């Protein structure tokens, strides 16, 4: 008798457990299904289930997160494309000025009827124009490749001294022409994570600028300071300086400072430098007092010990 009761009860209990398990699993699947449905319908913003202390809520949150990440990637690609397009149109616009001046001077030369002095003058103007175009073309290639991610910077541990001296060598001629001396403070030659070729390019651009906007016979100082995570390369000149309200803008494409109008330039050097630094996990910022000094600080990551 008792045996029968026990077995009946246990069968019932088993059945009940199985039923409950089934219901539980079904409910869970239904809930997951619903979550996926609303995500497929693109209504995932309205899923309030993502802030509850339950597994389902966590699952929903993660699913939404995955979806958003992928949309963000798509968005990013779209933005990059847009940037390039804008860049190209900017470029085209910027090219118009040198091209038209080249065209004008070429026309004047072709007309003849000019003095030797004038001819020399026009030719050198054409040369400047072409150089500018040349420079722009160079930048265009670099920037478009960098922006589009065609070129991947390859930051590897490398000694920084060589990089800096490469840059100084590049601008040496220019500097000596203005009798500007580039002085480097004593520093320890440490390894930094950087792509030497591109970093050198960035530093060169900054040095170029410094030389361009510095009076003749002045000095440019380079010093290196190591922080816990970054190493800071400081480049200071005693040139015309930048107005404080422009400090944020100088790294923009084709931006020229208000007091830089008298100097040749296209406004791509600092833009490129910033881009290069960013691409390798570093950053750059400027500090200046007009008429006194300008300091560019370049931050490169230290090598992990």
């Amino acid at each position: 008798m008792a045996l029968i009761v026990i077995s009946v009860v246990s069968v019932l209990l088993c059945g009940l457990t199985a039923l409950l398990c089934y219901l539980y699993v079904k409910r869970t699947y239904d809930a997951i299904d619903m979550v996926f449905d609303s995500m497929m319908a693109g209504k995932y913003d309205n899923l309030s289930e993502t802030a509850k202390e339950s597994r389902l809520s966590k699952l929903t949150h993660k699913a939404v997160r995955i979806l958003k990440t992928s949309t963000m990637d798509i968005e990013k690609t779209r933005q990059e494309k847009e940037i390039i397009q804008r860049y190209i149109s900017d470029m085209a616009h910027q090219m118009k000025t040198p091209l038209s001046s080249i065209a004008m001077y070429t026309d004047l030369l072709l007309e003849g009827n000019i003095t030797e002095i004038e001819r020399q003058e026009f030719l050198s103007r054409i040369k400047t124009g072409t150089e500018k175009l040349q420079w722009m073309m160079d930048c265009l290639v670099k920037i478009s490749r960098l922006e589009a991610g065609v070129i991947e910077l390859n930051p590897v541990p490398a000694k920084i001294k060589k990089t800096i001296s490469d840059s100084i060598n590049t601008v040496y001629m220019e500097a000596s022409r203005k009798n500007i001396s580039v002085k480097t403070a004593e520093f320890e030659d440490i390894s930094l994570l950087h792509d030497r070729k591109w970093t050198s390019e960035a530093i060169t651009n900054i040095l170029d600028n410094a030389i361009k906007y510095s009076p003749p016979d002045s000095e440019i100082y380079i010093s290196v300071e190591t922080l816990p995570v970054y190493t800071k390369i400081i480049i200071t000149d005693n040139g015309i300086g930048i107005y404080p309200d422009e400090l944020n803008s100088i790294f923009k494409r084709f931006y020229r400072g208000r007091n830089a109008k008298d100097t040749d330039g296209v406004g791509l050097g600092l833009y490129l430098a910033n881009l290069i630094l960013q691409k390798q996990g570093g950053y750059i910022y400027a500090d200046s007092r007009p008429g006194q000094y300008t300091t560019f600080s370049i931050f490169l990551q230290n090598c992990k010990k």
Partner: protein
Amino acid sequence: MKNNNKAVIKKIINRSLKSNKKRNFFITTAIALTTLLIASVFSIGMSIMETMKMHETRLMGTLAHAAITRPTDIQVEKLKKLSYVKEVGTGNYVATVKNTPQMGDMSLTLHYFDTTEWENLRAPAYTNIVGTYPQKENEIMVPLWVLEKMGVDNPKIGMEIPLTYHDKNVNDGLPVDKIFSLSGWFTSYMHIRSGNIDFILVSEEFSKRLGKTAETDGAASVVFDNSKKVSEYCDLLVSDLNLSENQNVKPVPVYNVDASTIKNSILALSCIVIFLILTGYLLIYNVLYISVSRDIRFYGLLKTIGTTPRQIKRIVTGQILKLCIIGIPVGETAAFLVSFAAVPMALSIYEDTKTGTVISFSPIIYIGAALFALLTALLGAFKPAKKAAGITPIEAVKYIGVKLKIKKRMVRPERIYPGRIFSFANGKPFKMAFRNIFRDGKRAAIVIISLFLGMTTFTCVTTLITSMDTDNYVDSYLESDIVLINNTVSGGLEPKQKFDSSFIEKIKTLSGFESLRITSREWMRLDYTQKDFGKYADMYIKKYGGEGLGEDYLKDNFSGILVGIDKEALASLDYSSGNPIDIDAFDRGEIALISTDTPELFENVDELTIYPIKNTDETKMHKETEGKPVKVPVGGYVPLFFERVGFSAAPTVFVSNALMDSIYEEPVIYKICIDVAKEYEKQTLETIKQLTDKDYEISRRSKAEAREELREGKIIMYILGGGISLILAFVGILNFINVMSVGITVRRQELANLECVGMSRRQVRKMLIYEGLWYATLILILVFTAGSAVTVGIFNLFRKQATYAIFSYPFIPVFLASLTILAVCIITPEKMYRTVIKSSLVERLREAEY
């Protein structure tokens, strides 16, 4: 399905515990103390209950609930099969032992028990069982006290015991001499209750030889499955067993443990438990609350990062639970050890311990104590946990310890004018300290209240203990130096004249004898008339109920107790309520006194007609003896239970001994009170002891012995009460130290600021000590005013229970306790400040940011 994030909570709990060692110590101590105290209380309570239960069974001499007389074998088999019967044992009377002169006055029978009866029902009610149950025909097992009476002081197994027994069916009822061999002995307690009635146990073989079986001369005793349904089951048994005419079912009369005493004890113990939970709760709550307040940044930060309120609650309570894991076992272990010492002490206050005491180690004590301690801890953790959970991240960001505006930026010392601050601090540091105390009113209140409560309880307990004057107690409870009571008078036995004239003469000749009062007691019947006793009868029937107590019944059975006393006994009566008694007339036997608290009921009674009757044991009927009725006028009233005499249907009547002697030939003397010269007190006591010892029909109370007992009791009270008050004081002081030290730790940054603006360390220290002194002063003022009032109030309440208590303020203990408080109030800030200044000023200033 729950999101499983227990692991990280566990980790935070463990780390939090690790970083709060001092707090843990306080809480663990609190938990352990609570557990210890609750377990001790439970243990005492359980032990009292078990001791009482044991007391009961030992006095009954059996565990059985009921007995069925003269059961047949078939009935016994049937009994064993009944579902509500747990055990069945049988036993039977074999013969009666004839007393030798040496044995004196006792009723011994030879008895046989079967194995179940002996092992399961009887043996548990005996102690010190040595040897085995008689197997051979000539073997016997004898209670120790009987052996002693027989003159056997060092019993040995196998020794020869000669006995003379008789039985009406054996040897034509003539006595038979037989030498038995002792197979064992035991301590029995039955005779204490029954007045020297006990069994000598014999073997089955011997029983059979005499032709005695359960069916002829015995009974089957049964244990039911539910001790509360004894009478119900007894009725069932009658029908289930088909009992014959001459058989009946007798429930074992439960030795009446005073239910209200137990109830009161339980009530008192539960009050103590609640009190303990309260103090434990206060301590734990306080420590935790402070800890949580101090960790506001921590909890706010956790919440910012994404710890939900529920998780934070778990973090707080989880810590408490972990501390419980340490605290409770420590407390339990301590309680286990303490119970060996404390429980017997406590028991000796409660019960007379003739039947021995039991220390209960019932798991209920320890499980209960653990549960209650856990409850206390969780209660204590509840509010702090809620607070922690409710902390908003913003609060945490803004929190800087105390509600005092502290400049966030570092103040440079030279910018401030040090002189001004100096003069402020220098001139009135005690004022500054006073203001500091009440800056956080709640904290100040908690500190003061907890220490005040501890101190006041301490004072109360010490007052109560010191006020218990033992001599006073003895004098108020015992009217004479030595009191002897005849136990046979009460308890439904046949009264014996234990104090015959030769006995009294013997006492009168003792050296140092001063006076002797006799209280005699007999049964009487009063003439009942509706006019005289109608009102009383109505009240009696209403109060004590019972059918068959109708007026007709009362008319014939209006019997009661007649007590003879000496006139001196009346001296102690209080006449303030009027109605004085003419003592001389009483002494001359001209008046009788009615024992009542409501004299109105007897307004119409002018004269009593007293018929002497004799009490016969068996039927409890009071048969009239030949004797003439006596008419005595009523001359006044004495309180109910005067001289501790009870009452029967008719009111108890007091007359003089002289009159008593004239009514009865030789009235049974119930009680004699002896007064002796002080210097002979001990000597007389010794002599009387020798005269009456081992006679369980006489009980003795003496001032000398009472004092002795009380002295022990007082020491025990001191230890227990002192222990409790010490623990309370300890809890209070712990609490105080905790609050004080936290108060300083929390303000370390502020103190650093003070130092920064030019307050020297010496000045800071002075200020802190002033703070402590302020606390001490406030607390002590409270203790001496409100605390004293409470103490006096409690003492007066206590006085109602114990009239003998004399108020005496415990100056020395209170003085010592006050000193301790002062010391703590001064040392704690000093010590805390020292740990604070271990870190540099700048570090401390910076801490505000972290």
